[in-house]
């Protein structure tokens, strides 16, 4: 059967996003469907997993199997899917709150466990869904939330640093304003064995309207041509990071965690061991 190649549009579901007009997440969705088209993955062999948040609504908008889980647990669900079904391509998505606040522990352990999947963190430095509170990536002096009227006063998490320190096997930063570039990056992340992490700067135009000018701030990383393959080198590069440099920072070769192997025994043999 020589089927027509699938286009990005084929990977869009017919569910209409609930996002605000102008939200960066639309472009992330576009990048995802482009990436799927680039990879020509059969729709039914892809699982898109997320938590809760504006960004986490993405699975329903992709024509693939999806799991819109609870807040903060996307990576645990995604790990379960991939460990049980190594034949599927598993992509997890979520916001900076979902992934780094309530979900921080699963981020830490997913980085080090190195299940072969891709995690796209749609970072808008705010909790969009709950109407604009500070997230772990918010600046310490951002005073627009009534919950932290004097700003969160806490040093933001730098997602790439954290991913590297926790052992992620592929670390990159993209920008929703460049869906083509982002699509390529997601393709690379997905192809790379193990746990791949992509931070995407994706503006929240409603609660962080000033992020509209991220397009002015975002620039390609100086080291973009040459991906680091060693953690200290990647760390060194990050030392000068302004948070807006895009590109693939690091690609490592740690062994993938895939502990499921074919059966070697029958149940009856196991049961016999109880006989006394």
């Amino acid at each position: 059967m020589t089927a027509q190649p699938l286009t990005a549009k084929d990977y869009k579901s017919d569910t209409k996003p609930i996002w605000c007009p102008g939200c960066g997440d639309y472009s992330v969705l576009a990048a995802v469907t482009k990436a799927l088209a680039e990879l020509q993955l059969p729709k039914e062999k892809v699982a898109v997993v997320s938590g809760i948040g504006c960004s986490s609504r993405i699975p329903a908008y992709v024509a693939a199997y999806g799991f819109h889980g609870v807040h903060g647990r996307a990576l645990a669900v995604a790990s379960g899917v991939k460990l049980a079904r190594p034949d599927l391509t598993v992509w997890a998505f979520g916001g900076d709150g979902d992934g780094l606040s309530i979900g921080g522990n699963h981020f830490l352990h997913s980085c080090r466990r190195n299940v072969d999947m891709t995690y796209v963190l749609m970072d808008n430095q705010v909790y969009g869904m709950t109407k604009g509170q500070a997230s772990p990536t918010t600046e310490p002096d951002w005073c627009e939330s009534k919950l932290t009227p004097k700003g969160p006063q806490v040093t933001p998490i730098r997602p790439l640093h954290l991913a590297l320190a926790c052992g992620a096997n592929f670390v990159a930063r993209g920008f929703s304003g460049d869906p083509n570039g982002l699509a390529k990056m997601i393709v690379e992340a997905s192809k790379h064995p193990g746990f791949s992490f992509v931070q995407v700067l994706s503006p929240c135009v409603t609660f962080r309207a000033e992020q509209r000018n991220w397009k002015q701030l975002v620039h390609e990383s100086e080291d973009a041509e040459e991906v680091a393959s060693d953690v200290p080198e990647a760390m060194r590069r990050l030392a000068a990071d302004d948070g807006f440099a895009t590109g693939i920072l690091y690609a490592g070769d740690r062994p993938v965690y895939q502990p499921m192997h074919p059966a070697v025994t029958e149940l009856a043999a196991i049961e016999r061991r109880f006989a006394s």
Partner: protein
Amino acid sequence: MAESVAVVLTGSGGAGVMTAGQMLLEAAAKAGYYGLMTRSSGPQIRGGEAAALVRLSTRPVAVHDDSFDLLVAFDWSNVGRFAPELPLSSDSLVLSDPAQGEMPQEIAAYGPRVAEMAFGKLAKTIKGGRPNMIGLGAVAKLIGLPLEPLLEVVTEALKRKGAEAQDASAAGIRAGAAAAAEIGGPATLDPAPEGGVERWNISGNEAAGLGAVRGGIRFVAAYPITPATEVLEWLAPNLADLGGVLVQAEDEIASINMCLGASFGGLPSLTATSGPGLALMLESFGLGIASETPIVVVDVMRGGPSTGIPTKSEQSDLNIAVYGMHGDAPHLVLAPNAIEDCVFTTQWAVHLAETLQAPAIVLSDQMMGQARAVVPRPADISFMSRRLVAEPCAEGEVYNRYALTASGVSPMAVPGTQGCMYTADGLEHTERGIPSSLAGDHLAQLDKRKAKLTDYDVGDHWADTEGEGSVAVLTWGSTTAPVREALARLRRDGKKIRLISVRLLTPVQPEKMAAALDGVDKLLVIEQSHEAQFFHFLRAYYDLPAEVEVFNRPGPLPIRPGEIVERLKPWMS
């Protein structure tokens, strides 16, 4: 002569009482007996005082007797603190080493017969001899257990340590038996039953693991916790051998979410934990309910609340298991009622969860879970139905993951199935799976999720019932064992009495319960919970006879058959 004999071995950490207890149980099994062994130990991580509680019998025994016939103390360090767990009678024999000082006051208070045996000195007469082997030999002699199987077991156990160790132990056993010849035993076991019933030596936690794999579980993600860890320890290597996998997760929340992911992927999935871990899992358990993703959570209950008493049993997680989710959240709760029933009930839980696409909780407890018994091989059961999966959809066809069907169960598409792509969701949704906050969709899906459970015919397994008459005992879980024994005693005295031990706690079965209670006018509810959680649960959902009494007590002390007989006597005319 006695149908059953109960023995306790106690001593401090190094004394080897657990090893000795285990050998005694195995030897009895070899000799054709049934038996039960439980353990107790002090707060120290290692090396504290310990007790092995062993009951041997010509028929299967699921619970300790009202008192122990023989207590062997290799030393007395802190054994007093176990006293309430080691009831003795004036017929009991206490055997202790005179070199180890006085019997503690709490033990002496039972007024047992006392005899001395110099375990330490006798051991020293043998090269490489150990007091616990002397003790084992003495026990065998005193209760009439043949030495042969014991020697076999010990020889087998020490195979790796070499002939010298094997000989030393054998010599110790013989020396102990010889030394005990002078002492009158407290009771002599009836001869072992003839005939070739296949018998297993299994713990409740192993049994739960076996039930899981029998049910088809091939994915487990879990985080260790006392007293559930042995479920996982049994599953890890065996799942690997069966082509499945056990993942040790970073915490309980990750565990249950990995299970949800794996089950979404099509693999029957399970996790095991205890109260604190179950509490952490509840939010995500609710996700399983709303998204209709089957999973099984085995909760091996321990004393609560909070960290509570991790090493002791209690039936106090009934509330959280039945009611612990936010929102209207119908799900399955099952409870095994004996060590070997952990096999069946866990298997059935997997079957129900998969068939009904609903999460299930299995309430085992420390008493069953960590006890080891010699029992008849649990029967093979095979359930016919499985998860209802969706067929591939053609181009243009719409797949409704949450379709409203007559049974409430909708075909579930396993990833890989062409054309059925959908998004599983914890948000309320339409039949299609699209988030919806409309009253109509909410009601339809609530009705569906409820009806698929309540309309399903669970057959006879919902409870174990036995006996007849107008007096009944209603109980559940591990408390069933002493109830069974108590009722057997009463029946032996010609009394009529019924037992209803509820295996399926939810969905509730009002019609079946009404039938089981038909003609009952006096009901005793028995449970191991301070708040009488089971009793209040019954009141909430069932119509009970006018005269109801509750015999409830928190852990850690088990409820004993004799106490139950006493409670029932006034009703036994």
